[in-house]
């Protein structure tokens, strides 16, 4: 059974999990955005070159 009641330690546990989720979301977002932006740019320049 899931135990999501952190009791008196909730103020420490949930911020730790929330921050981890935010940092992971940031890593995923920035990595994908960076890769997609430069992929599009490289493809535009390649097409213009041909």
């Amino acid at each position, binding site marked *: *059974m*899931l*135990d*999501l*009641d*952190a*009791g*008196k*330690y*909730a103020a*420490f*546990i949930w*911020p*730790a*999990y929330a*921050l*981890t989720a935010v*940092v*992971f979301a*940031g*890593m*995923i977002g*920035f*990595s*994908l955005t*960076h*890769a*997609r*932006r*430069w*992929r599009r*740019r*490289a493809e535009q*320049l*390649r097409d*213009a*070159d041909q």
Partner: protein
Amino acid sequence: MIPAPAFLTNPERFMAFSRWAAPMFGAIAIILALAGLWLGFTAPEDYQQGDTVRIMFIHVPAAWMSMFVYVCLGVSSFLAFVFRHALADAAAQACAPLGAAFTFLALVTGSLWGRPMWGAWWVWDARLTSVLVLFLFYLAYMALRASIDDEAKAARASAILALVGLVNLPIVHWSVTWWNSLHQGASVFRAGGPTLSAVFLWPLLLMGLAYTAAFGSLWLVRIRGEVWRRRAEAAALRAART
């Protein structure tokens, strides 16, 4: 000869490999994280630490990754510096922000765990201070890289900095053995086997593998982005010359 698999030395093969490997590692990371979190939140409270033991499932993997990613940064930097390998340099550049993010998570989640257990958000003991130094090495690597316009000079200077920073890794690892520390000693990777109870060890190992797979996926995505950036800048340079 560079002692690496062919796909790591050839950008075309690397791009073909990473196209399917990056989403595959990402899917593995999600499955492992869900399993680890389920086991972590169905495990009983620790008899001493109560519910705060659940911070361990995100803090310890972040701490492991902070060191593992630096090893990846060091190896990539070595290959880039000695063999002038462009893909190794892209790999080094791609993993530094990820390492910094994992180290930041290790420091902050550790602080959130330390406050209720030690009564302090931060103490200047050897483990915490050496991890802070590790974080500063990541930031210094990225700052140095960004401050030099010449790509080749930036690669060499930042590779030297990354290799110097490797000295800090054994200090981080053995800091709890060499000095008196509030931080507990190794309880998983130690001679004689883990001292953790299985109800905590399994979710911790699953989360550790999830973090590793997530890093693998994101690292590949970032290297792909770096390869495209360099291709775009080379194409822009060619276009400017004609």
